[in-house]
């Protein structure tokens, strides 16, 4: 038993904190969030130069081949600083699908570019009947002229407006098992028939509706076996979720620290409000939710990195905890801050928006609890 960070992880954490403090102070978060792209290009390039974007890409494909716990240490810092970027979607989820299912040609052409930050990929999974299991993949891809034709709509696709290519998860066949018949297609964002619209609203990261109208895809751009790609997608989603959990835990930790600090500074009736037990109760909720998110996330990462059979259960459990916990930590922090909590310059709402958004991304608590029950073969 050893829950300490390795020397490499400690150095990475400290370096990442320094970079974030330099590049993304609180006031910059709002500017980035309100910008058209939703991320900081200069910071993106710095992430690439620091080799962060290839951390879980194998060395032979231009990455550094780190484990997921090490990547999660970095993501916890990114979450703490409310850093938005296509990192998770491009370098973790999409890169993993290529690693798991891609051809040698796809791996050698795409993965190094992802690692260098020169190409941004995103994965389009969810549809208007928003859900994350294989049964929710309804968009069809029909075989035509040696390739495929895509028709349909994907919604809440992260970063599609800045992506160079999309990995589109679509159905090429139907059967009794919903996991069968699912394929993944590599589609250029500017391909004919592809239209991208940014969803508008109170969202933590930029997400888009992507429409496919008779989009032609060559057979060479099918990723993995036609009709047999769900396994790679699910495995990649698990890995991305394990890292997202750490990001959410970092955000929850910041929400906790904000209310803890505020409660010592804000004076009411001549004393800091932190002396009131009712205020303390909110602070404690924020603390316990942040810590539950963190430790379940790292326990799941340990299961993942050590190749345990029960890794998926742990990842789903940690996501269920983080989906609820990040929101509760923010809600409790708002309760401590009261009216000032919604001041956009204060910064708490940066976290609340992310808590609300990531609650759903890669599956909400309800979805993951159901998945846990299935994986544990209850009943």
């Amino acid at each position: 038993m050893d829950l300490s960070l390795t020397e490499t992880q400690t150095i990475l954490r400290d370096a990442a904190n320094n970079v974030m403090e330099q590049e993304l102070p609180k006031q910059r978060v709002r500017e980035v969030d309100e910008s058209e792209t939703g991320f900081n290009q200069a910071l993106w390039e710095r992430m690439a130069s620091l080799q962060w974007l290839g951390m879980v890409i194998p060395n032979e494909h231009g990455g550094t081949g780190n484990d997921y716990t090490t990547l999660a240490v970095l993501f916890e810092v990114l979450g703490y600083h409310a850093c938005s970027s296509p990192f998770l979607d491009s370098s973790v989820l999409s890169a993993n699908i290529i690693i798991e299912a891609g051809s040698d040609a796809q791996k050698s052409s795409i993965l190094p570019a992802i690692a260098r930050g020169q190409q941004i990929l995103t994965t389009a999974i969810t549809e208007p009947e928003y859900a994350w299991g294989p049964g929710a993949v309804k968009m069809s891809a029909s075989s035509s002229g040696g390739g495929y034709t895509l028709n349909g709509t994907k919604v809440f696709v992260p970063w599609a407006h800045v992506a160079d290519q999309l990995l589109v998860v679509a159905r090429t066949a139907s059967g009794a098992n919903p996991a069968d018949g699912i394929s993944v297609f590599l589609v250029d964002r500017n391909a004919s028939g592809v239209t991208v619209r940014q969803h508008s609203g109170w969202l933590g990261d930029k997400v888009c509706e992507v429409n496919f109208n008779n989009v032609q895809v060559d057979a060479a751009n099918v990723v993995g076996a036609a009709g047999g790609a769900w396994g790679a997608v699910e495995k990649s989603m698990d890995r991305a979720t394990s890292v997202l959990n750490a990001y959410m835990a970092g955000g929850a930790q910041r929400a906790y620290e904000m209310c803890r600090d505020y409660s010592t500074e804000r004076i009411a009736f001549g004393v800091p409000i932190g002396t009131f037990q009712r205020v303390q109760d909110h602070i404690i909720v924020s603390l316990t939710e942040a810590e539950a998110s963190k430790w379940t996330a790292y326990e799941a990462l340990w299961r993942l990195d050590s190749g345990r059979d029960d890794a998926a259960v742990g990842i789903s459990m940690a996501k269920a905890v983080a989906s609820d916990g990040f929101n509760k930590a923010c809600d409790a922090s708002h309760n401590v801050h009261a009216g000032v909590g919604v001041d956009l310059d204060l910064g708490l709402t940066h976290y609340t928006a992310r808590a609300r958004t990531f609650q759903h991304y890669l599956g909400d608590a309800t979805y993951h609890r159901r998945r846990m029950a299935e994986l544990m073969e209850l009943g």
Partner: protein
Amino acid sequence: MDFEYHYTEEQERFRAEAGAWLDANLPQELKDAGDWRDLDAAGWEQSKAFQVKLGERGWLAPTDPVERGGGGLSADSALVLIEELGKRGMRWALEQGSSSLRTALKQWGTEEQQDRYLPVISRGQATLWHLLIEPGAELDLDQLQIQANLDGDDYVLNGEGVFAGPGPRPDYLWTLTVTDPEAEPPATATFLVPAGTEGLEIHTPDTLVAGESHRITFENVWLPSICLLGGDGEGWSVMQDSLLGDPLLEYPPERDEDVANLLKYASETTRFGVALSKQPFYQQMLMEVYTNSEIVRIFRVRNAWMASTGQKLTYHQAETELLEKQAALRLSRVVREIMGIFALLGAEDPMAPIRGKFQGHQKRSLFRQNPTASGGLEVQSAAIAKRLGFDPLEAKGALTFPDEEEEEMEEEASALPSQ
């Protein structure tokens, strides 16, 4: 990171030895008893006898020196012993407050006290009850109603308190007393009181869970100074230092047996032809309580790791206990939802699920909610806040202070027309 304990060959050898001994000596009736509370009078006597056997091997205090009644085992071997007891549903044999008293004796006791008491406790020859007082909570003189006055070389105790511990009768009481309520802060002292001392009276109320707590009155109970543990004035520190327990003793944390039983029941029980565990509404609740129990387990691993690496635990144990209590309360409600009225059936009813264990669980959950008896959620929260650096005595959540209320009332009174 590594969340798993890795066993050495030496540990595995000891596991075989300990397991064989336990299988040969643990009475069949005690296997998977779950808790001393689930034992009848005969079962309790069997458990006492078994504890004496454990004590003879030094296994009730596995890491203490042999000359003090301990087992002289390494921490690694003790961990295996705890696991093997846990596998047989007997982990509670090592708890019951005696480990915290041993901690207090070793830290605060004189050589004479350690020689006298440690072997008795470590050999399972003493049943100990302790005053119910929550670790980490503020000392509340209104709740502490036992006063000790120095008379010559002896102390005289008067008052009453609520005590808890296993079995129908104790051999010793471990209590906190106030010795000078006027001092700032009030002076306190802890005593180890032989239960047969004249002037003690034990009242065990009829409660839902028999024997959970006992009201004990002290009327001119004379105690020699050897019964004083720590100095006069150090009582609160003694209690605080020892009551949270050793986080290493909680490692490796066990999976929650109640949750495991509920999952098993829900998997094997159908309603309208479908297993309860496959019905979405129940499935969500099942996974929620499973997750709650896992969070507590993972926090215990964290606490043990912190303790084993010399990191200072501050709010961490109180935080774990808070979550454990919240999880238990939620589990209690979920059990009623999933088992329905069957959850209330006792072991004697042939239709009782899981041999009626959840009937006891339902009753005990009420006890857990009672802040006076076992430390409610608020007490744990106060302990966390204190360790985070907030002083809960500065204000108690009231947003209007008494002086202001009085001023407002006076203003209102002066505004009234005179009769």
